[in-house]
């Protein structure tokens, strides 16, 4: 009890207006911010990969496998913030054993498992199968066995088998797009279906989440491609980069329009919560919503990419603008998640008071854990790049 009092006392000073006692402290902290951010990156990266396969866009082919592996690396990390937040990760498998169909959160376990096992792993397996077999043939020792096991000891590299692989990848991609929509749409659904919270409760929420996910996914692949390619002493494919930036630009416009639509809808409806929400937006969320999310994360990158598109700038300058824009977009999308998750808990359900969020540095819910969780996918991605090199030369070397 003493500890709770010590913990709540500094928060009491941040409160303005009237607030219910159970609203003083936020229950969903930064870990719950990271979770939709990471799932968004997964869905976005996968949808980019799907564009290559379904619409046969040759220009962005160099990023196809990078996108798949990125989606996998981030998908592996996606449930970790939730496990860290809820505690008792050793009990988490129980939601699979006794499925509770009336709980959206419980059913998400199955969406996640479906997406991981039936979509992402299968697509990667079929796409890499031939290469893994050929690599295993040339390698020795540990790598040989690793690749043999990964190929499930498959040996058939006949033309018929490879044709089947390609067909399978295409079918999985077609199933994968609605699955990716489901994966991230669900995250928006969880927030959008909270009737009591006017900041969250909106039918547009899953759609806005989805488009911001695609934005962040494409920006992430652009960043990874631009960092990894020079590190491998290769030339960045400008056609591919231009196309990626174009996709980013167009999806951002759709995302921006949706968010603007949501915003206008709220103002026009002017429900009883509008006063406290406008206080929130002009006060506690001003920096993170107006300055970072809207200006730095949306308008500046949009303007920058538009400038590149209008004026024919030299390639070097283009690269720098793309890279910086993609970084700003990441910051912007992260604050989008922040503004949804944290913003939605900052105002009282009495609509007449605001509280504050105090993040700790150490501890399970702290900043340090969060930074670790955000870095972990990159470590996994590095290992995946070593085991399943996505580069073209790794493919051609074995031919």
């Amino acid at each position, binding site marked *: 009890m003493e500890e709770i009092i010590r913990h709540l006392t500094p928060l009491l000073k941040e409160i303005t207006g*009237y*607030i219910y006692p159970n609203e003083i402290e936020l229950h969903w902290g930064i870990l719950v911010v990271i979770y939709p951010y990471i799932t968004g990156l997964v869905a976005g990266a996968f949808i980019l990969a799907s564009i290559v396969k379904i619409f046969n866009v040759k220009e962005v082919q160099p990023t196809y496998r990078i996108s798949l592996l990125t989606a996998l690396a981030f998908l592996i990390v996606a449930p970790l913030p939730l496990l860290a937040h809820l505690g008792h990760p050793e009990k988490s498998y129980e939601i*699979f*054993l006794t499925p509770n169909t009336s709980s959206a959160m419980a059913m998400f376990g199955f969406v996640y498992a479906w997406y991981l096992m039936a979509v992402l792993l*299968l697509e990667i397996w079929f796409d890499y199968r031939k290469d893994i077999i050929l690599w295993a043939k040339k390698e020795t020792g540990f790598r040989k066995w690793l690749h043999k096991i990964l190929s499930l*000891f*498959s040996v058939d590299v006949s033309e018929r088998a490879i044709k*089947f692989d390609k067909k399978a990848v295409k079918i999985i991609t077609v199933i994968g797009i609605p699955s990716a929509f489901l994966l991230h749409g669900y995250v928006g659904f969880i927030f959008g279906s909270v009737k009591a919270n006017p900041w969250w409760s909106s039918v547009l929420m899953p759609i806005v989440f989805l488009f911001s996910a695609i934005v962040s996914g494409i920006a992430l692949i652009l960043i990874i491609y631009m960092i990894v390619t020079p590190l491998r002493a290769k030339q960045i494919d400008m056609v591919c980069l231009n196309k990626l930036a174009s996709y980013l630009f167009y999806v951002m416009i759709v995302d921006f329009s949706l968010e603007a639509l949501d915003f206008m809808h709220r103002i026009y409806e002017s429900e009883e919560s509008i006063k406290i929400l406008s206080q929130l937006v002009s006060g506690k969320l001003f920096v993170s919503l107006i300055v970072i999310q809207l200006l730095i994360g949306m308008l500046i990158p949009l303007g920058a990419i538009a400038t590149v598109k209008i004026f024919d700038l030299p390639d070097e300058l283009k690269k720098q603008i793309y890279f910086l824009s993609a970084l700003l977009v990441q910051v912007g999308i992260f604050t989008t998640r922040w503004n949804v998750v944290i913003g939605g808990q900052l105002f009282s359900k009495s609509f007449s008071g605001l509280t504050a969020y105090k993040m700790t540095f150490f501890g399970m819910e702290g900043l340090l854990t969060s930074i670790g969780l955000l870095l972990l996918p990159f470590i996994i991605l590095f290992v995946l790049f070593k085991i399943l090199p996505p580069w073209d030369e790794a493919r051609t070397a074995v031919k």
Partner: protein
Amino acid sequence: MKQWPLSNLWKKLPEQVRRLSILGIILVAFFLMIRSLLIPSDFGKFGHYRASAVEEIASLPMQYAGQMACVECHEETVTLKGKGYHKNVACEICHGPAAAHTRDPGSVKLTAPRGRGYCPICHEYLPSRPTGFPQIVSNSHNPMKPCISCHNPHDPKPPQTPKECSACHGEIAKTKSLSHHVYIPCTRCHNVPKGHKISPRKFLPTKPSTREFCGGCHAKGAAGEKGIPQVDLATHGKRYVCWQCHYPHLPEAH
């Protein structure tokens, strides 16, 4: 040898699909096995939980004895408490679970909080607590003294009757201190019956009920200091009473 139709189909499948299927079958079989091993047999009998969990929880040792058990030995204290403001606060809220003490009063002694940390859990000033509920700011309310040196927890009363309304109505007093109404005493607008300070809920103060009451200062031509905003009561917001638009403790607020 006779060929089964299934084995024909199996052979027709591409090699990679056959391997994947084996892995898939192993995974599904593993999942089903785990399910049959780990799901308790009585799961779902009553609802989405283990039926025997109810009995397990019911069979946990009782920690609390209930107020009736206290009366048996501490009748005097319970009677005293029953007359005071803490009559609805159960003994074990302050003294902790007492089941062990009732079984063996000799060796298990109960404690009571003696420091300043415990009482403010209910009595520290919080805007969300109901008006009139006794609240203090513990940093400025006799900071060095333990609460029990002035208040008897079994019959808590202020050692002397509060002189100021702000002793209980802290938030209103703070709000009013920011407004032009700061120098108007509470009693100008509220008639406070004598008993209110002793039994606040039984003897409620009055509130103004007419537009003319505010008009006493704010109607056009009313006597009073210079600079008091004055309006024509006949035309100014005629269908409403004043406090529907103006909060009397902070009339400047919108």
